[in-house]
Structures are given as structure tokens and as C-alpha cells.
């Protein structure tokens, strides 16, 4: 059987997976349930130097947006930046789980040599603070206030969580119940609070329809993301995509099991039209199979190259904007000292009692969430080999259906219905049928 890969189709998936809140909690100034629909965060880290880019797809009224993130130190104005949305979109497109397709060759044709060329790749992008006296009375210190881009930013330190909660309430932020319990551990660790809301005037002036990601740069021995705050207003598991960008190797969690998504498997053709649904189910099953405690790795690659590329790797200028500070000179035709790890975290209060801690490993291997479609040859076949090919095809489809069922938990009837006429016949020929033919 000869298979010639002709076209590989990559579909990015963030639109397919429901995602809500980033590590801080989003709170409203008016009633009404608010969720940030998807959250993506890039962490660039080398040594203690860290740059975090926090993206969100906030859908509500701009006036109701607020973000609270614990940070290790009071940040100066220069440590805060508002980046471009396309940076995270580019990371997403480059690293998203992908569906690749191959077309079987004519089993009756004779090929002069086995050509394994990678075909064309195409990617489908997925998808007024209260007075200081009041703060003092509540044990809250306003350490700094800035307007950066379309955001008004306040850096707070607090003596007690009740005071901080009261300050946030007094300031008009709609704080979820139990917020002070979630805030307390950070106060005890002498962490500061980075609180951002939208400055409507600046936002209108900027001309951007959607909010841009906030970036912060700091030095800290902690390699972590504070997710516990985000659970305060959550009514179920939340999804977050973490793009970890490091110098030496893959990033994994040091306090939660980190496993790779099942990958490199052949699936029935109809998955092409339901790839989003397929991946949602496959992710949910993998997450459930690991007791809902694990973090799933979706991509690990040196940013210098990719194979196949769902989207071109990020340019050095884009990496610099994300905070990569160690690249010098240019890198052509090979690796660069930069590994991108894409981690998909689905977390809830019950299974993720602690914030996420990470470590950079020495693993420089590559990994991608890659799902394969093999289109059969549908032309006319008149040679003797055609019989064998059909039989092989039936066996293959049977396997593909089984794989799909084991990856997603879908029942066979659903899969066979999806496969339509391609569904494998119920009973394969008994083994002896061709014995004396």
C-alpha cells in the first residue's frame, strides 16, 4: 500500500474548546454573570526573569471588565505593557492540535520511487479608585497607579484579605463570594495585587474593538500561575492554554501530573468536518482518564522550525514583543535556543487545590497533537491488487473507528453513522473464506 501525502490541513482549536477565566478573576461592576470566554497566557521565562502575556476574550461591557492578578513585587510603569492580540493568535495557530490528511495512491499504479513529500500546509486561524485614606483604613496600600494603553492599573498591597475585599467592593468591583478566602494566601506570602480595569476614554481613543493582552515583566524565583483566584467566580471547570517559552527545554508542572495528549493516530474521514467536536471530546476523555488532576501537553517544539507547520513560526520581532529577551543575531534553517510548550489546563476548585507551579526540563524532544486522515483511492481499480486494497481499507476503517471510540468515548453507532457508506461491514469475512481460493 502506498500513501502519498498531498495536503495537510491544520485546524487550530481554541475556538473549539470552551475556555473561560484566566488566573485572575474577572469581576463586574454591575449585576450580570460575566465570564471571559477563553483565556490564553504566554509565559516567557529564563532564570528568574519572567514575562507574562495575559490574553482574554472578554465579551461583556468594557466598563465591567476587571482583572486581579497576584504578582510577586510592585511593578514599575516600565514593567507593564499592552501587547497585540495577534501575538497570542500567532502562538495559537502555530501550536494548535492539527488534523493532517493524506490521500492514498492508486493501488494499481506503478510508482518509480516512493516519494514522501510534505504537501502544502494551510492553517485556519481559530479560531475610579476610592480615596487613599479609605484604603489605609482597610489595611490596603495603593502602591502605584498607572494608565497603560486602554487599562487603568492599580498595584495594591494588603494586610488582610477582608480589607482587600472591602476595598475592591468599595471601588465598585463586584467581588464574588469567598473572594477573601482566595485572596488570603497571597497576602500571607507578601504578594501584591495587580488590578486592571478598562479606561473607556483611552479604549475609544485606541480604536481597538477588543481588549488587548496585558503584559508584565518581573524577576521571581516562583515559576507559577495563580489560578486559585479565578475559581472564586467559576461555576465549573475552566480552560486555559499556557504557552511556555523557555531557553532549554519542555516545561511541565511540578505539582500536577503533566501528560501528552494522545496523538499521531489515524481517524475516520468524517472527523474532518467535526474536528472541533472530536478534539473537545478527546481532550475531555484524556482529562477524565487522568482523574481530572492532570495537565495536557498539546505541543512542544523548538521555535526555529516545525514539521509540519500549522502556521509559520513566530518571527524574532514577534518573540521579542512577547518578552523573549535572550535571542541574539539571526537563526536560519535550524533550531534556536527557544522551546515552546503548549499546555492545556482544565481546572476546577476540587481537583486543583493549589496554584500551578512549573519547571523547565532538559527535554528537547518534539511533540504535537496530530491527527491523521487517510483518504482512500476512489478512482476506478481494475487490477488484482484492488481486491487486497479494498480488504485492507475495510480493516483500516475498522481500526480508525476503534481509535476514534477509544479517544473520544463516542459510541460505535455514532461513529458508524458519521462514517456513512464507509462504515466497516458488520462481520468481516471469516479467515477461512480465502484459504483455498
Amino acid at each position, binding site marked *: 500500500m502506498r500513501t502519498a501525502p498531498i495536503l495537510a490541513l491544520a485546524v487550530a482549536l481554541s475556538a473549539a474548546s470552551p475556555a473561560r477565566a484566566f488566573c485572575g478573576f474577572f469581576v463586574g461592576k454591575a449585576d450580570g454573570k460575566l465570564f471571559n470566554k477563553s483565556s490564553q497566557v504566554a509565559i516567557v521565562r529564563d532564570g528568574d526573569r519572567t514575562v507574562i502575556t495575559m490574553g482574554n476574550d472578554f465579551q461583556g461591557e468594557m466598563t465591567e471588565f476587571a482583572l486581579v492578578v497576584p504578582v510577586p513585587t510592585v511593578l514599575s510603569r516600565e514593567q507593564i505593557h499592552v501587547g497585540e492580540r495577534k501575538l497570542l493568535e500567532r502562538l495559537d495557530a502555530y501550536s494548535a492540535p492539527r488534523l493532517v490528511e493524506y490521500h492514498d495512491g492508486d493501488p494499481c499504479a506503478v510508482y518509480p520511487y516512493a516519494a514522501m513529500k510534505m504537501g502544502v500546509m494551510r492553517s485556519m486561524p481559530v479560531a475610579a479608585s476610592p480615596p487613599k485614606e479609605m484604603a489605609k483604613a482597610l489595611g490596603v496600600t495603593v502602591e502605584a497607579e498607572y494608565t497603560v494603553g486602554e487599562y487603568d492599573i492599580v498595584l495594591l498591597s494588603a494586610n488582610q*484579605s477582608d480589607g482587600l475585599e472591602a476595598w475592591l467592593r468599595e471601588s465598585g468591583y463586584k467581588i464574588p463570594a469567598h473572594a477573601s*478566602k482566595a485572596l*488570603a*494566601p497571597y497576602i*500571607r*506570602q507578601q504578594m501584591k495585587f495587580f488590578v486592571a480595569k478598562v479606561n473607556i476614554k483611552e479604549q475609544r481613543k485606541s480604536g481597538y474593538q477588543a481588549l488587548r493582552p496585558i503584559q508584565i515583566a518581573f524577576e521571581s*524565583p*516562583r*515559576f507559577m500561575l495563580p489560578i486559585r483566584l479565578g475559581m472564586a467566580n467559576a461555576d465549573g471547570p475552566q480552560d486555559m492554554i499556557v504557552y511556555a517559552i523557555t531557553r*532549554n*527545554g519542555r516545561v*511541565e*508542572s*511540578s*505539582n*500536577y*501530573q*503533566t*501528560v*501528552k495528549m494522545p496523538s499521531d493516530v489515524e481517524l475516520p474521514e468524517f472527523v474532518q468536518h467535526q474536528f472541533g467536536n472530536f478534539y473537545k471530546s478527546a481532550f475531555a476523555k484524556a482529562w477524565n482518564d*487522568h*482523574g481530572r*488532576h*492532570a495537565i495536557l501537553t498539546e505541543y512542544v517544539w523548538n521555535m526555529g522550525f516545525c514539521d509540519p507547520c500549522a502556521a509559520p513560526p513566530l518571527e524574532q520581532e514577534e518573540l521579542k514583543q512577547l518578552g523573549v529577551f535572550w535571542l541574539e543575531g539571526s537563526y536560519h534553517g535550524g533550531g534556536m535556543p527557544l522551546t515552546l510548550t503548549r499546555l492545556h489546563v482544565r481546572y476546577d476548585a*476540587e481537583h486543583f*487545590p*493549589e496554584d500551578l507551579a512549573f*519547571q*523547565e*526540563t*532538559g*527535554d*528537547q*524532544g518534539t511533540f504535537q497533537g496530530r491527527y491523521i486522515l487517510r483518504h482512500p483511492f476512489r478512482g476506478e481499480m481494475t487490477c488484482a491488487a484492488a481486491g487486497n486494497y479494498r480488504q485492507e481499507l475495510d480493516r483500516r476503517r475498522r481500526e480508525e473507528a476503534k481509535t476514534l471510540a477509544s479517544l473520544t468515548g463516542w459510541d460505535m453507532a455514532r461513529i458508524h453513522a458519521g462514517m456513512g457508506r464507509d462504515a466497516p461491514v458488520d462481520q468481516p469475512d471469516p479467515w477461512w473464506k480465502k484459504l483455498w481460493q
Partner: protein
Amino acid sequence: MRLPKDARWLQIAFLASFLTLGLTARDFPLWHAPLIFAACLGTQLACEKLLKLKPAGLLSPLITSFGLTLLLRAGVWWVPVVAGVLAIGSKFVLRIRGRHFFNPANFGLCCVMLLTPRAWCSPTQWGEGAILLLWILALGCAVAHRAFRSDVSLAFLGSWILLRAARVLYLGQRAPVLIHQLAQGSLLLFTFFMISDPKTTPRDRASRIGFAAIVACVAFELQLRFVQNPIVWALFICAPLTPLFDLLTEEKAPCALPQSLLSPSP
């Protein structure tokens, strides 16, 4: 059921089941295992031959090999080899008053992590559900069999849980945080197969308990400083305390000293 005479067989059986469990979890590599076992066993045999020592059997380097296989992760092939050679080599080279004081697997692991960023330790690779089961099994063994009933293990575990619990209380966190912190495979391995090593802990019982408490305190301090794998590093840092404790308590227990002078194996 009759249990084997040499308690180390039971330990090996436990470690082998730990490894099997790891293999059923996703992403648990095994390519480095043959390299570690070959390096450890080869170094043991080579050192015995070179130093013209009476063969001490291969159970001890087997336990070291299992420990390293379970804890060490490597990005290049030579890391497991170097770790194995250093682990076993340390028993024969780094000796004070006729006794080695670094736990071999701990020494090998820490040395390669210091040598290269391509060596690391993944404390959470087994997943939490499986580890909770293993804790129950290990504690059950501790009740049932002396191979697991080490005063130093229990003293360390007690101190560590106490310190972690105090921290969780101080931070105003909930009990599941503590349980989550204890559900780490590396903690279990460390408690029952590393710090429990009778050859690298003080001879005197009170000193052993003090030693375990010090290791727990150092590990706690390292964790507060966000050092990864703090318990592994704490034992490495505290290892030289063992000969010091022995020296201080020597007069109390003079008879215990000559026992292992001629025996370089753990």
C-alpha cells in the same frame, strides 16, 4: 505467606511495582532504565574488583538502580550512565571513617542535575490517584514488615507533614492542599527508599531522628525559596551530618563502629 529473609527483596518488589505503575501512566520513559541498571551494576562489580573487596551482592545496586530509574529524567543518553556511575562510585570513594554517607541514588541524581540542565526530576509523573494507593500500600508494609519500618522514615514523614500542615494553616489554605502536596511520588520514594537507608544515616537512634527532622526543616526552607525537588536537595546537603552525628555519639555506642568498616556496600 513467608516473606523473604533479606528485607531488600521486599523493597525491590515494591520498587518494581512502582515502576510498573509508572509504565501504565502516560509519558513514563523507560529507555534510560537499561543504561542505569548497567551503569550501577557494572560500577559495583568494577569497584569490588579494583579494590579487591569481597562481593557484597547486587541487591543494593539494584535498589539504587530502581531509585534512579524512578526519579531521574534525562534529555541525553549519557546522563543516566553518569548518574549510575556516580551513584555507586560515591559509595567507594566518598567515605569518612570507613563509612559512606551519601545515599547513592540521591548523590547520583543531584550530581547530574548540578552538571547539566538535561537532567531533571519529575515529582508528579505518576498522577495522584495511583500515589495515594501506593502510600496506603507502603504504610501497610511499614506496619507489617521491618524493611519499611525505619525510624528515620517515620521521623522524616512526621516532621514534613507537620511543617507542611503548619504552612497550609498559616496561609489560610484548605486541607486538600496538604493532601495534594503529599500525593507526590517522589516524596513516597524518598521516605521509604532514600532517607531510610541505614548505611547513610546516623547509627544512634536519637541522632537518626534528629537527622530526619533536620532534613525535613532544610527541605521546608528550600521549598519556601521555590527550589524544585527540595527534599532531594535537602538530603544531599545534610548528608555530611551523618558522619558528624556518628562522631559525636561514638562514645555512647563504641561497639557499633567496627561493623561496617570493612564493608563498602550500603
